[in-house]
């Protein structure tokens, strides 16, 4: 039953990819096809890492309406971009190539998450919510700092930052993409080993310790995997706040199971399908007049409000 449902998702995803690749091709195949293939690749990398990391994050926090973005990774990313433009103005891209920017901003986000763990775990604080709270507060601080700098910056230069503030799958760089893919494959490989522990972590800290799971160590490693995935996807296309909540909750509804090996796979697939459909709408219905993250955040936001209203009952 579960396997059949996952089979349906795989078929749906293949149809989406085919639609995306071959709809309205035109005549210049040798130009269009490789361009589209790169976009397909980007979407798969980004969407599956967002789906995967959201499920892990919600399991660790035992909360189904959180996403890793609460930890403030995205505001670190925006702040980093803002500072770059603030310092170098319109010469930003002469100073720093795309791949350099990608690596540095990924690094900045990883350093940020390591910094938060050090505060928490060195003080023997074992409460995961304290971790989230610190992330949330620092995230807000960085956001405010970014806004402050953005106000000072020349409006023309601000448009460079604006490009980074909304996720876009439209122009990707192949070099970057293979780097990101490499990082993700490593994270998936490490994550694979921990999948069995996730089923137990979903029961909460006390049950996990009772069942012999080294809880603190496990949470640290998993948060590190999450931060790599979020950093990579944010640095590639920019922040997509609500995608994680949207796809993880669709997954829980679609697959009523507690087994993470199925949940993680299904969520990655659903995440890809949602982004493909969104991007397809952008390209062929809205003619690129809006960004995919705006549509996803809109739908995700509405769904989020629905979830909150539902959980209050």
């Amino acid at each position, binding site marked *: 039953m579960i396997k059949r449902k996952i089979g349906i998702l795989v078929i749906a995803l293949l149809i989406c990819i085919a639609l995306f690749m071959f709809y309205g091709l035109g005549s210049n195949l040798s130009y269009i096809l490789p361009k589209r293939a790169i976009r397909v690749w980007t979407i798969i990398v980004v969407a599956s890492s967002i789906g995967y990391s959201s499920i892990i994050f919600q399991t660790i926090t*035992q*909360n*189904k309406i959180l996403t890793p973005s609460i930890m403030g990774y995205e505001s670190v990313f925006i702040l980093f971009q803002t500072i770059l433009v603030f310092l170098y103005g319109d010469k930003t891209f002469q100073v720093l190539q795309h791949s350099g920017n990608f690596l540095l901003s990924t690094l900045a986000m990883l350093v940020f998450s390591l910094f938060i763990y050090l505060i928490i775990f060195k003080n*023997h604080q*074992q409460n995961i919510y304290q971790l989230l709270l610190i992330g949330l507060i620092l995230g807000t601080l960085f956001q405010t700092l970014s806004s402050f700098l953005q106000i000072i910056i020349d409006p023309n230069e601000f448009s460079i930052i604006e490009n980074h503030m909304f996720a876009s799958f439209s122009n990707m760089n192949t070099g970057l993409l293979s780097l990101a893919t490499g990082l993700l494959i490593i994270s998936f490989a490490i994550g694979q080993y921990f999948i*069995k522990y996730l*089923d*137990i972590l*979903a*029961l*909460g*800290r*006390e*049950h996990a*310790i*009772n*069942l*012999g*799971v*080294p809880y603190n160590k496990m949470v640290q490693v998993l948060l590190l995997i999450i931060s790599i995935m979020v950093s990579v996807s944010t640095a590639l296309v920019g922040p997509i706040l609500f995608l994680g909540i949207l796809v993880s909750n669709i997954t*829980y509804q679609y697959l*009523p*199971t*507690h087994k993470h090996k199925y949940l993680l796979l299904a969520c990655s697939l659903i995440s890809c399908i949602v982004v493909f459909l969104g991007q397809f709408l952008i390209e062929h219905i809205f003619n690129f007049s809006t960004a995919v993250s705006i549509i996803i955040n809109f739908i995700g936001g509405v769904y989020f409000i629905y979830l909150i209203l539902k959980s209050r009952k």
Partner: protein
Amino acid sequence: MLAFENISKKYGDRVILDKITAELQPGRITALVGTNGSGKSTLLSILSRLIEADNGSVSLYEQPLDTYKPNELAKKMSIMKQANHMDVKLTVKDLISFGRFPYSKGRLTKEDLKKVEEAIAIAELTEYQDSYIDELSGGQRQRAFLAMIIAQDTQTILLDEPLNNLDIKHSMLVMGTLRKLVNKFGKTVVIVLHEINFASHFADYIIAMKDQKIKYHLPTQEFIHQGKLKEIFGVNFDIIEHRNKKICSYFNNF
């Protein structure tokens, strides 16, 4: 077996446990009793490595607790805290199967399945085994968690106020199950209890805590006396003998 020495714990300036030492009787039920804030639950959490003590040491089979590998310890000692809210789609049987995680890491063997079946039978949950835990009543859910601990099959079982929010029937079922584990399988049970009559009827030994220390550690029959009960709980008790059992009545205070 399970022993602890000089355990201290402070939260800020507030002392929760003040250098307490004891050794628990193997193959018996020991009840931890005392007023709210006397440190019973904290002691139990320290014994079960859920929180760290500031000072002192806990040992199991004469080996300090912190030298065990987490997974090995989980085969020797289990802890059940009060059932908390869980937003996971799990059937009773799935939950009980988690008890086998220390042995099989999620891939259940034939022996694991047998242990799960046994645990379901001992906790008398056969008719609910395929229900989802969020559809159960509080009492049924508590018994499902107890069955998970039974499937874990550890020599030592620690329970923190397992009777909280349970009706009389479910309280009796839980205590009866624990008694069965001790009498038939020789398990060692340590349990935090609020209602003194459950302690006096089901426990073999009582550890009574007051002012962050252990005041008494006695066989149950020697502890149940008006003077000692008043000293621990701060209210007057009448001890009524009924069918060779002592019932502690405290309703004459008003």
